């Protein structure tokens, strides 16, 4: 444990270095890459996912998983759209959607923290069930026709070149970083993820912390869903479908251990920047969606594998103690 800090720093260092390389290559290969508009586009296209990534980091560090986030995003978007289309003021519809999302999260939390079911099972059921609820509400329709102020919130810049979702993301980045690394709650999250028994014995109210995390996850997912509805201007039953894998990928590439207890917010933020820039560069270079996904898959594996191999090689030649064997935040059974 003693050089945990050092290792985490080097993980982030690696992400930063790859990011620099990606940015440099993009700037050389794709002419429009460095324009302000493209930089805004690049964030705007995935900002809803990025917002959920922040809260998913808390979920995974606490040793749990939430597979239902994309379905909650879809459900919240559908609630806003369906209510607005039936004459409910959009402001009210937004509040209801956020409430529904929080309830979904609370329900997940209840089954996990109070009943004691595995979060994978609970949120897998949520993934199917919440999407199902969205379908019940919207059936085979596509609902749009939001008031202009709502769509322009999603599509127009409100501060300099920045649209609302980016500002929310920026604020949340700061907030999430402070909560995770500086607050008592953040410490609880780590303790919970490292060892739930220890957490219990050391007086952490484990159920309450987990309930809070899952409810926050539901709320933030719903917020993202509403922002997505505003950006797209129309909502369907499939809105945000499949986003959970991208979201989890970004958290894991950020150096967060899937087994809980390890990972940092700066790592996750670098991972978000890296994936968004990589995708944008590949897209500008006319690389198909399949290859983009493949490249990110390779990057995900190599980012863990290469440090591991280097560590193994070093320990074989006896130059350094065995502790560098494991990659940062991602110890595996051995």
């Amino acid at each position, binding site marked *: 444990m003693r050089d945990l800090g050092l290792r985490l720093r080097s993980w982030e260092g690696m992400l930063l270095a790859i990011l620099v390389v990606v940015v440099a290559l993009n700037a050389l290969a794709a002419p429009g890459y460095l324009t302000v508009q493209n930089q805004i586009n690049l964030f705007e*296209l995935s900002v809803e996912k990025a917002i959920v990534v922040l809260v998913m980091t808390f979920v995974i560090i606490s040793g749990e998983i939430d597979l239902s986030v994309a379905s909650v995003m879809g459900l919240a978007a559908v609630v806003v759209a369906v209510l607005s289309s039936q004459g409910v003021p959009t402001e009210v519809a937004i509040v209801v959607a956020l409430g529904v999302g929080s309830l979904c999260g609370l329900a997940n939390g209840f089954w996990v923290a109070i009943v004691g079911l595995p979060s994978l099972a609970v949120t897998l059921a949520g993934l199917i069930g919440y999407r199902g609820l969205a379908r019940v509400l919207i059936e085979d329709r*596509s609902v749009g026709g939001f008031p202009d102020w709502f769509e322009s919130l999603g599509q127009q810049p409100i501060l300099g070149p920045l649209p609302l979702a980016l500002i929310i993301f920026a604020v949340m980045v700061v907030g999430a970083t402070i909560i995770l690394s500086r607050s008592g709650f953040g410490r609880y999250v780590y303790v919970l993820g490292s060892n739930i028994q220890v957490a219990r014995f050391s007086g952490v109210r484990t159920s309450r912390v987990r309930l809070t995390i899952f409810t926050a996850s539901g709320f933030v997912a719903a917020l993202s869903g509403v922002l997505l509805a505003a950006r797209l201007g129309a909502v369907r039953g499939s809105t945000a479908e499949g986003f959970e894998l991208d979201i989890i990928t970004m958290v894991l590439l950020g150096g967060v251990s899937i087994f809980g207890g390890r990972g940092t917010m700066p790592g996750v933020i670098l991972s978000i920047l890296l994936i968004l820039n990589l995708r944008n560069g590949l897209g500008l270079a006319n690389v198909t969606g399949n290859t983009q996904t493949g490249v990110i898959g390779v990057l995900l594996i*190599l980012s863990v594998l*290469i440090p591991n191999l280097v560590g193994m090689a070093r320990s074989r030649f006896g130059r350094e103690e065995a502790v560098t064997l494991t990659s940062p935040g991602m110890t595996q059974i051995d």
Partner: protein
Amino acid sequence: MNVRLAIALLGTIAILTGCSSPGAASPAASVAASTPAASASEPAPSASAAAGGAVKATPGQSVKMMLLPKFLGILPFDQANKGAEEAATELANPEKLSFVGPTAENSVQGQIEFMTNAPTQGLKVVMLSNNAGDQIAPAAEAAQTAGTKVVTWDSPIPSAKGESLFVAQVDFDSIGVVMADMALDLTGSDGGEFAVLSASPDAANQNAWIAALEKALKDPKYAAVKLVDTVYGDDVSEKSYNQALALVDKHPKLEAIMAPTTVGIAAAAKAMQDEKLCDKVKVSGLGLPSEMVSYTLNGCAPEFALWSFVDLGYLTYYTSYLLATGAIQGTEGEQFTGGRMGDYTIEKDPTRDAGLRVLMGPFTVYNKDNVEAAAK
């Protein structure tokens, strides 16, 4: 630490250079070159269009174009690309056509990404088979503002926002009539029950066609046939297969399954064949001859319909080229020559509330007499 970093970097560079070099080769200079040519040629052709003649394309102009299907890896879109390439060769466009698409599971988000990036890439036209419904409209509008035309084909933007034109394969209302005719045919002179097996509940063109079918069925001519159910197989073989069997179990008197999707029709036909139900329940809808030939010959799917995706790709390319070079403006009533396919007129799309279309047509109805030739 240093060694680790260095190796990680090398690895990434290898991936990046390996994957991005082919696409990155397209020079930005030619885009700039194409713009003056396009604007220079604007006034003349529109004048000739007003005079009533069909506008003809001037080959050899440099136009950067992208063909964006719903996703990559299935036959209809590949055929469309073949047609577009044929047109590109004919028109001697020095810019290579880029044929890119998202993954099947990330289709909506992926299409929006490509659309958003299009102006940055200097594309003059995006030819889109829309899978995102109206969700792509803001991105398409932004692209139009930034100078990239959006021509849809196969599946339009329902609200027509951000869309210059829609190259329609056939008249959407006529798809309803053709499906009603086939249902009547297959259920026999005494009529009977049939059900629809669609793609996903929010597949815009499938929904439009089912609506057209329901409209067509109101005609007293079809009084004997009854549409009893609509189910969704999400364009996944496994799901469609199970849904087809469930339809048969749910409706004991069912005589036909109508699947307006190439994945659904093949899966349903296979399901009926496996459960030896082909004598009782016939399968029909929209299918690819090469995928349906064996079911048509053995009587599981005696007839089905489709249009040529090669022609659709060809006409879409022609139309988009004319639009991007300024030869046509994309207004109602303009006439142009679509290469080997003859003359077309831009008209209001009667199957949507707004939007303009170029109607290709017609259908081919396939049966045991013509399916083998078409499957080659």
